[in-house]
């Protein structure tokens, strides 16, 4: 029973980890907390459901389309909305991303309806049984996708010129700009990456929990909780934070009360923000005035 709960926590945690990754990449590139990040995941799920269930598109094509759609939305969001307010105060930026989230949610409701829709499991992978713990096939998919995404991101950020440029721009925007790294371009790239990761995560989650236009708020908050728990801006921390939030939630619903699982992860978010704003594993940052 305990191990089973842990396994389902890890699976959910992988999804939160992907949500947190998108959030972290955007934060690193622009120092914006993207409140619309959860909507990418919602869109990924809803797009996949719409394509597979209504348009009878094969699942792999549907997933690719969902990723592309979310990447496009991310690009439009950055170019059309956030670029115009790059020097605004945090409140304005927060409200801009919340406004975008509302608009995306509304657009999804208009385009795909307000019903909960379902996507068939991806299949192919078997259901694994270890002793009396079973790992669902969709769970295996999710774990694999997180591993692949993390490896790809690690490669991009530590081995390619593009990734190094993005890291440079996030550490020292001015010096990076002097070296010819266009900040608007890295910002747009970051948002495209966040959109694709969010869309992929949402599509992976859709067969496990139904796709619904209002999913974005809670998925977004879980992603924030994960990113903050791992130390904002730290991609490895984001994945670890996601797993942690997933485990805590799963343990709460398994052993305390399932209704309170959301409340527990949000409380965790508040506590980490107040007590350890550098994240559970990070070093304290001293700010000079």
């Amino acid at each position, binding site marked *: 029973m305990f191990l089973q709960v842990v396994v389902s926590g890890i699976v959910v945690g992988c999804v939160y980890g992907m949500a947190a990754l998108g959030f972290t990449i955007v934060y690193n590139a622009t120092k914006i907390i993207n409140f619309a990040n959860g909507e990418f995941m919602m869109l990924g799920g809803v797009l996949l459901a719409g394509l597979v269930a209504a348009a009878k598109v094969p699942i792999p094509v549907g997933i690719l389309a969902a990723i592309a759609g979310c990447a496009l939305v991310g690009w439009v969001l950055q170019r059309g909305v956030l670029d115009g307010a790059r020097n605004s105060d945090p409140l304005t930026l927060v409200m801009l991303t*919340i406004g975008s989230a509302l608009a995306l949610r509304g657009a999804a409701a208009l385009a795909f309806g307000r019903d909960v829709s379902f996507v068939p499991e991806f299949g192919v992978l078997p259901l694994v049984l270890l002793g009396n713990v079973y790992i669902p096939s969709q769970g295996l998919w999710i774990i694999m996708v997180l591993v692949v995404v993390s490896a790809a991101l690690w490669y991009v950020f530590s081995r390619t010129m593009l990734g190094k440029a993005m890291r440079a721009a996030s550490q020292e925007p001015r010096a990076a700009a002097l070296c010819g790294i266009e900040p608007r371009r890295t910002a747009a790239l970051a948002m495209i990456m966040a959109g694709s990761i969010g869309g992929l995560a949402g599509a992976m989650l859709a067969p496990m929990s139904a796709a619904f236009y209002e999913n974005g708020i809670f998925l977004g908050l879980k992603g924030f909780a994960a990113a903050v728990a791992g130390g904002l801006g730290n991609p490895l921390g984001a994945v670890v934070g996601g797993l942690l939030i997933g485990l805590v939630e799963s343990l709460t619903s398994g052993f305390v009360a399932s209704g309170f699982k959301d*409340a527990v992860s949000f409380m965790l978010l508040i506590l980490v*923000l107040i007590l350890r704003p550098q994240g559970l594993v990070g070093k304290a940052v001293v700010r000079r005035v």
Partner: protein
Amino acid sequence: MTLHKTSRLRRDWQILALVAALLALVEFCVSSQFHRSVIILSMIHSVAAVGLTLLVGYAGQVSLGHGAFVGIGAYTVAFCLQRLGLPVVFALAAAVVLPGILGFLIARPILRLSGHNLALGTLALGAVFYVVAAQVRDVTGGLDPGIVDLPSMAFAGLAHERVVFWLSIFALCLAAAIAASIVDGRFGRGLMILRSSELVAECIGMNTARAKSMIFAVSASLAGLSGGLLALYLRSFNASAFGVGLSIELLMMVIVGSLSTIWGAMFGSFAIIVLPNLLEGFDQAKQVVYGVAMILIMLFAPNGLGETLFRVFTFRRKSA
């Protein structure tokens, strides 16, 4: 700013008297039940929006969780009326005091955060309240059935709606009066300094932690009052009314109105509540329109739509 203090205060009282007279006039003239309910809801939301303006506009502390305090106010009224059998006046007083105290206690830790983190923290707080309210069925009734059948407010021959209308006018004027006197006083001026720079505020000897807690508590009380009135008016409601959506809607009201005067909040609440009810079939596209409006306002009129329009209007008049 201090030079014009007395005249500004007087101007605020004049506006307040005007608003009160106008609303009273409306009360006598409106015959349609539907129009009456839209105006009542606008006034009730105004009360919370005025409080939020103090916090967001004046003190510069964003809250994405004020829906929670509206909810606490509503459940307090329901609890006082149904379980304790208290008179309405005491129930409403409790709906002001309890959120105020809770707000004061929460404010100190939560307002240590700033900028993005504060937005995140308060958003999470609102979400926690929603989950708890939906789960603690003993007190709140959860999502189904929620709170049902609060007593009617019909009194001395006046129908339920008319009594609530008068009560809302009174509450709104009270909220505006409190807000105006805070804003025009020493404390309010301190808050404005706090908004521009916390460091400066501390250097001139302000106890910033205390000031922030106080203003958070005041805005939580006003949100509670608004929630109490909402409970009295609706008589039946459930936790879904106090989710993250309500918090965002309240913030929208502030932004649509103005970030720098409390009168903007009233403009904003009426705009946000009345417009969707006027446009037929708007409900379908409501979220898209809200979202796009929010983006446009933040891009082109970050001080609030009402205020920017007002500025443009008065500037044109002066220059002409």
